[in-house]
């Protein structure tokens, strides 16, 4: 894979794993058009964590789906490690999907209720690799280990698991094929607060362990601040502000960002772990 010719950037030292320019998505419904995402550009260096924050309906999740090529962009280009995803379709796109994976917001509906946990975790191997039999079982066991769930869960169904456990299964599915980019679309917002913290800590560890690159989408600013090196603030489908997380949080240059930051509920702070 050749590295693309790109403009110098703050992370010029590290080549971008993901680069998207001018992403736009217009939804048509009932004769009316609605611009969900308007000219969003982003770049994530290899091993970096980019956060996208914004209120509900600001187009964050649409960006995630665009980047994953789950929906067609109306305009814009997406480069994954120099390869133009937006020009791909069919079999090449299917094969490149193993390098980028997504964890959805709602783990309760992201798992097929008729599949056991084993089936769910084995699925990435079955659709993308020739791995079968005993070796496949070993990989499934290994992934359950990675997400710290007991092997006995293999033969359970999703409805027998808690939300946090289901989200761990979703994460296991997503990292099964050793992707380079992991898109996390509000991975904790459907979970209890205590479980949220667990998952976030776990994601942080996982990133270091598997050398992953994250695109982290959230409306939880505290989590974004904890996890991300760079952040993009979105409002009504547009990028309002972007920059290194600390800089954006310390000196927000836009009113919208200031309002967003001011809306974080303040609690007696405890030292971060």
């Amino acid at each position, binding site marked *: 894979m050749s590295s693309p010719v790109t403009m110098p950037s703050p992370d010029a030292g590290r080549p971008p794993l993901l680069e998207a320019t001018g992403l736009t998505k217009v939804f048509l419904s009932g004769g009316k058009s609605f611009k969900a995402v308007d000219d969003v550009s982003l770049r994530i260096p290899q091993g970096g964590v980019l956060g996208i924050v914004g209120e509900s309906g600001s187009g964050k999740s649409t960006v995630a789906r665009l980047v994953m090529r789950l929906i067609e962009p109306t305009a814009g280009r997406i480069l994954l490690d120099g390869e133009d995803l937006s020009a791909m379709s069919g079999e090449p796109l299917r094969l490149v999907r193993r390098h980028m994976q997504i964890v959805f917001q709602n783990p309760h509906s992201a798992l097929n209720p008729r599949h056991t946990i084993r089936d769910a975790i084995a699925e990435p191997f079955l659709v993308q690799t020739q791995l079968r039999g005993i070796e496949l079982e070993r990989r499934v066991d290994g992934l359950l280990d990675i997400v710290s769930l007991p092997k006995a869960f293999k033969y*359970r169904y999703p409805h027998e698991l808690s939300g946090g456990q289901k989200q761990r299964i979703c994460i296991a599915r997503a990292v099964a094929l050793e992707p380079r980019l992991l898109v996390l679309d509000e991975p904790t917002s459907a979970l209890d607060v205590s479980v949220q913290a667990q998952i976030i800590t776990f994601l942080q560890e996982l990133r270091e362990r598997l050398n992953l690159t994250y695109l982290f989408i959230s409306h939880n600013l505290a989590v974004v601040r904890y996890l991300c090196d760079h952040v993009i603030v979105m409002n009504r489908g547009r990028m309002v502000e972007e920059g290194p997380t600390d800089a954006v949080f310390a000196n927000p240059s836009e009113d919208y960002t200031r309002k967003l930051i001011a809306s974080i509920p303040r609690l007696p702070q405890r030292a971060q772990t």
Partner: protein
Amino acid sequence: MSSVDLPAIAPHIPGFRERHASTIRQWRLYAHLFSGSFSSMLGLGLVVLFLILAIFGSSLAPYPEDTLGAVKLGQRLLPPSFAHPFGTDEMGADILSRVIVGARTSLWIGLVITGIGALVGVPLGIIAGYKDGWVRSVIMRITDLFLSVPGLALALSIVAALGPGIMNCVIALSIVWWPGYVRLVQAKTLSVKEELYVESARALGARTPWILWHHILPNCMTPIVVKASMDMGMAILSAASLGFIGLGAKPPQPEWGAMISVARTYMPDWWWYSAFPGLAIFLTVLGFNLLGDGLRDILDPRSRGR
């Protein structure tokens, strides 16, 4: 990624019971719910009864030769008695024997019609539901075309064109039976394909056939099973109707519809001739409908807590 530590030893794969503990629990729950309902159990009982008759019919019938067209003019049209519990017909044949052996014909017809209907209709429905654009339009318009003509009338004209006979009757009814499944499965697929797990499979890079087979079809099975069990009854009834108007089985082949057709000229004085085949049709159709209702009650998530 070498950091993924694979367990060094071979994975422990537990026994069948342990691996399928969840499934077994689920089925136990189904069985418990099902057996709690009197009408469901009645339906199941009737269906099992007729299945036994269909499988072992020829050895259960007291006068097997009567089902092959034996003529015993000495005992024409005898009323129900100990020797002939359902009486005898105009050829002197034992009606009980003919009803028992007729079960096989009726169930076979029902099974084949429902089977062909589902085998044709379910794949078309899934494709129509999953694909957009002209594929869906073509499938659904053809389906609408078939649905807009009354099924029995269409089957009648098809049999009339092909000529009477059980085989042609089955062909004709199969031709009119599949559109119902397309409708049902297409509607279900439309809702299932919006589920997050389908998008998740797509994000993994699953091919469309994989998604249809592993994600869409299993989640469409409940309405299909319910409809199929109810359709068994309806198909048997339709086949009997065609037999009644003389387009199905030909006497002396024992078929309930054809028996009633002959028997109607002997009404009402020789009532047992038409009453018992009619009762057989009634109980089979009732059995399959009650079974279908019972299955719907336990399989439909909305009628269940979880």
